[in-house]
């Protein structure tokens, strides 16, 4: 077990490093010049001044040297020049070209917002999706099943951004049902935190639940045909215990795998949700960073975050699978 985790952590580290190198290389070999906007901000930008700024920022050095400087900054404080000298405390992910703030600090400030949106939304869609999927499987072929399947298909055929936008316009603006939508840190005001995020949670939860309902229904229909379900019925267990205690227990494993990877994607930034509901999270930050002039340190940090989350989620899913399925544990 320990060996397995160690092996997986090593490969995880490798994946994150390679991703980071790839993004780094892509940016510095690409057409954009980070020195350009800095130069223009200081008035008339002559080629001489541009060259001087490039030199200050270290952009004239090779990609390898710059990457080495970045890696060193993860463990020791370093000085970064972006239109002026900034000290960047370790672990330093750079200084934002736009805000001139330390990227690590801003990430630490924005991540809780994304985390709040993602965890709340995912909890709702997992619960709603798995419950409706299980019920649809139990009532397979009945009108209730058809209504649940049809409803889920209808919701999932609406593009997510449209659903979120409609919810915002109709529920929040026209009907005024969700006043004060936005992000307040949980530590500051728990009530405002929850009430501000309620609408994003619901929208994310409803939209995400449809695919979980379909996964769960499929897995459950298969499981409910198994012999051990007949055994459970033959013991005299109640239908609820048969469906949820025996059926769902076996059907949930593949659903959890998908959930783990979905969760990683959500935590890496809920772009539409944050943008539409005005939440300063990682998603809206990444979106700003992509817009010209590109904010490379921010972009790099958000991509790195995504890579780290995906490999961690994979590891957690594999370990969790062992908890759910005892056959995996012993092999």
């Amino acid at each position, binding site marked *: 077990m320990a060996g397995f985790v160690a092996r997986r952590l090593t490969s995880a580290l490798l994946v994150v490093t390679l991703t980071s190198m790839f993004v780094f290389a892509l940016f510095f070999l690409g057409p954009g010049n980070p020195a350009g906007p800095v130069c223009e901000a200081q008035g008339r930008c002559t080629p001489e001044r541009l060259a001087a700024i490039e030199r200050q920022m270290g952009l004239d050095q090779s990609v390898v040297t710059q990457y080495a400087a970045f890696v060193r900054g993860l463990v020791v404080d370093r000085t970064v020049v972006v239109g002026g000298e900034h000290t960047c405390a370790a672990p330093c992910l750079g200084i934002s070209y736009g805000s001139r703030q330390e990227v690590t600090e801003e990430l630490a400030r924005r991540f809780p917002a994304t985390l709040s949106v993602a965890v709340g939304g995912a909890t709702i869609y997992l619960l709603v999706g798995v419950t409706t999927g299980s019920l649809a499987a139990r009532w397979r*072929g009945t009108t209730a099943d058809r209504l649940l399947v049809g409803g889920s298909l209808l919701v999932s055929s609406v593009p997510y951004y449209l659903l979120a936008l409609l919810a915002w316009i109709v529920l929040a603006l026209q009907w005024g049902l969700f006043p004060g939508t936005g992000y307040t840190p949980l530590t500051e005001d728990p009530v405002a935190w929850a009430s501000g995020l309620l609408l994003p949670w619901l929208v994310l939860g409803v939209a995400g639940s449809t695919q979980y309902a379909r996964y769960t229904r499929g897995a459950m229909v298969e499981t409910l045909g*198994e012999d051990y379900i007949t055994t459970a019925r*033959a*013991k005299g*267990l109640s239908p609820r215990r048969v469906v949820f205690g025996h059926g769902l227990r076996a059907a949930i494993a593949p659903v959890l795998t998908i959930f783990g990877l979905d969760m990683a994607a959500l935590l890496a930034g809920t772009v539409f949700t944050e943008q539409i509901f005005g939440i300063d999270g990682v998603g809206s930050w990444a979106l700003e960073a992509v817009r010209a002039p590109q904010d490379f340190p921010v972009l790099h940090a958000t991509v790195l975050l995504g890579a780290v989350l995906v490999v961690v989620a994979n590891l957690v899913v594999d370990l969790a699978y062992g908890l759910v399925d005892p056959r995996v544990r*012993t092999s």
Partner: protein
Amino acid sequence: MTSAADAALAVRDLTVRFPTDAGDVRAVTGLSFTVRPGQTLGVVGESGSGKTAAATALLGLHDPRRARVTGSVLVAGTEVVGAREPVLRRLRGRSVAMVFQDPTSALHPFYPVGRQVAEAYRAHHAVSRADAAERAVAMLDRVGIPAARSRAGDHPHQLSGGMRQRVVIAMALVNGPAVVVADEPTTALDVTVQADVLDLLREVQQETGTALVHVTHDLGVVAETADRLLVMYAGRAVEAGPARDLLARPRMPYTWGLLQSTPDLGAREERLRPVPGSPPSLLTPPDGCPFHPRCAFAETVPGGRCGTDLPDLVPVSGETGRLRRCHLPEDVPLGEGQVGP
């Protein structure tokens, strides 16, 4: 014959049909039998003879949306056919329990075996988890699982096939049911453990006085253990009677054919003679006696009645408790000697 009152299980005119787009599949038609406490009934038939559909109906396990079950199944005096789910739930596992064919698929792969036995007990007894677990360990020990206490924590995949079937048997017996239905309980097991499991079933039955319905395609398996036999063909009973008499003097060509096709290790020179042909479709059964297309004697019955009239299940004259469904005169010899143990 036993009256329904003192029987642990009384089945009267049981019919199971599965409606399909092409018509009804008549899995079981007009099946009747009774089993007294402590008695074993062997239900014998080829695959597709309706024996599993009948066994499933004994616990009311057919999905009412997919199967039409009519007739009567009285388990310890309670009607199963048409009973509502809460009634069935109290009955299943407590009054009538089932031992399944394949213990590997019958056990939940994710739960420890002890817990699965304990759950069957807790479904019918208001006891604590710990007490039920204790009871499960005792039961596992009773069915011959060594080191039952530590084995109770094992998952099914950690046990051998024979041990798994012992767990299934423990699960079926934990509530001391009046009736145990065993559907091909040894078919999925290695030959070496089949005898052990059969012995165990018989032993526990003698100890608890439960009535046992042993469904099998293998006459050899029930020849020694069953008190009475019921031979099914195309969803109907075609012959029934005390096991010893029926095996010694089969009175219906299908039973005789089954005996001929059962290997007997004692008789070396005897060649096995399989019953020619295959069982009829239950969707469109043949007119007359369902066995007539495969029956070597059908031609000898005057007027071709085998192909037009379904014979009734009637007592065999001069033999107590024997029934058969055949147009052949009773004195027509079917063949020489008994095959099988």
